[in-house]
């Protein structure tokens, strides 16, 4: 017995679809079994809210009366350099871009309080941002210098375009050295003083569709509080990671490139964050609806934190020096309990991904689907598979 996306969409339009979150389905499956759940449930919503460094937005700025070609020149938004390799009025602001010579970053470990991610959050929040630009000056674009204040509304286009988001699983980071270290996995205390993880686990989109049966190019998603789409596989997408019997990878594997209209998003769902000693990044919220086409999809979306395993890696030496050494494995139920037992030590765990907010994303997407004005899309092409 199987369903199609078209059938499920018909039910959604009529308000007759059964939609649950990736957490709710766990209890349903425990009570009713996979067969019944596959028949009864139409869509499972997943969610995640986490720092996702490979993020940014491309913007098209209105030309001043005397025209200017930013392409090939230099520009900054609130002092943060933007990419000016695209034509006259298109710029790209990346989350990790930092102002030149910020004194707050000068002394180790560096605060990294302000960068591209903070500019993006401010734009989405409707704040004024200062654009300064210098240009070569051509016959058709004579203006050489420009400084102007703009807001999101005034931009012709503002598109969130993230080359790598929604990592399918990620490492657990520890610090084996004697000194505190400052990493993208957070502040890590010496001698395994803490263990940090970064995944929504059982709510995480790609962990609920581990072999990419339903999530592909063109999948419509909740992105930053608005609508987005999966537009390509993300950079470093690697389907060939070792998988468990449940077909879920036991380390970082698939990724998504996502795109959406920044003007439809909200600052509570796109946050500029600042990692001491590392840099700035954008915390992105993503929610992916998964159609329950058959029993296999019901089983995949019923995955629990205790069935999701990942690798423990030392970030003081092994990660930066690329030794490839894996210290051990742990599952997300143990990580989320707050304590990991490893090498006879009780290690407190810290999360970087907000489970509370992941729940909120999954719940919000569920509401959108139940309202009938968010339909599922058929992927136009699959993600590179196993």
């Amino acid at each position, binding site marked *: 017995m199987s369903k199609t996306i078209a059938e499920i969409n018909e039910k959604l339009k009529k308000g007759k679809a059964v939609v649950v979150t990736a957490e709710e389905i766990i209890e349903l499956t425990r009570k009713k079994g996979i067969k019944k759940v596959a028949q009864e449930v139409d869509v499972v919503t997943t969610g995640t*809210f*986490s*720092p996702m460094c490979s993020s940014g937005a491309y913007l098209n700025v209105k030309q001043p009366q005397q025209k200017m070609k930013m392409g090939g020149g230099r520009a900054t938004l609130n002092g943060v350099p933007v990419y000016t390799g695209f034509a006259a009025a298109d710029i790209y602001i990346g989350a990790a871009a930092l102002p030149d010579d910020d004194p707050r970053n000068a002394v180790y*470990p560096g*605060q990294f*309080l302000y960068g591209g991610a903070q500019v993006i959050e401010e734009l989405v929040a409707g704040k004024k941002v200062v654009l300064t630009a210098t240009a070569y000056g051509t016959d058709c674009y004579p203006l050489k210098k420009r400084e102007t204040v703009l807001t999101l509304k005034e931009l012709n286009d503002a598109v969130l375009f993230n080359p790598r988001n929604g990592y399918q699983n990620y490492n657990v980071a520890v610090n084996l050295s004697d000194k505190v270290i*400052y990493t993208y996995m*957070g*502040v890590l*205390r010496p001698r395994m*003083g*803490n263990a*940090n993880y970064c995944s929504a686990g059982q709510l995480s989109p790609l962990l609920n569709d581990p072999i990419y049966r339903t999530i592909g190019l063109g999948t419509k998603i909740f992105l930053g509080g608005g609508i987005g789409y999966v537009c390509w596989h993300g950079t470093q997408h690697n389907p060939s990671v070792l998988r468990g019997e449940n077909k879920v990878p036991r380390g970082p594997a698939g990724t998504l490139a996502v795109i959406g209209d920044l003007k439809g998003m909200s600052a509570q769902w796109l*946050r500029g*964050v*600042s*990692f*001491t*000693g590392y840099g700035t*990044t954008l*915390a992105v919220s993503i929610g992916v609806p998964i159609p329950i086409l058959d029993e296999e999809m019901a089983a995949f979306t019923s995955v629990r934190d205790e069935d999701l395993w990942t690798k423990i890696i030392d970030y003081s030496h092994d990660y930066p020096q690329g030794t490839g050494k894996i210290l051990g494995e742990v599952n997300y139920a143990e990580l*989320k*309990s*707050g304590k990991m037992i490893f090498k006879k030590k009780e290690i*407190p*765990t*810290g*999360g*970087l*991904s*907000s*489970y*509370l*907010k992941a*729940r909120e994303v999954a719940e919000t997407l569920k509401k959108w689907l139940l309202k009938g004005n968010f339909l599922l899309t058929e992927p136009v092409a699959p993600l590179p598979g196993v």
Partner: protein
Amino acid sequence: MAKKKVILTFPPALIEEPVTYNLIKNYDCKINILKATVRPKEKGRLVIELNGSREAVSKGLGYLKQIGVQVEPLAQEVRYLKERCSHCSACIPHCPTEALSIDREDMRVTFRGERCIICEACLPVCAYKAMEIKF
């Protein structure tokens, strides 16, 4: 290790006393000068942070009081900005008193100010800058 922020007020007669030099050399305290105001023939004011072993800081403060410097503790608190918190739980392993704690069912972080000892460990850890120190 002890860290104490104090406001020192000097009567005009003591303006010449090399207080920070003595605290460092004779009492083995690290000094961080947060603010200094010295005007001729008026009271001088120094806001400093003393950093050292409990014994060193205690003896250093004793020396100051002994020579007639007025010593007042600088009131400070750590504030939790609820609207900025993402409830990621990155701070939880760093808080020594569980002033920052998380409900493992709800996965919601809460801050209890009365438990906070102002160790400041959470400040560099919170990526959302939901923790700030006020004095």
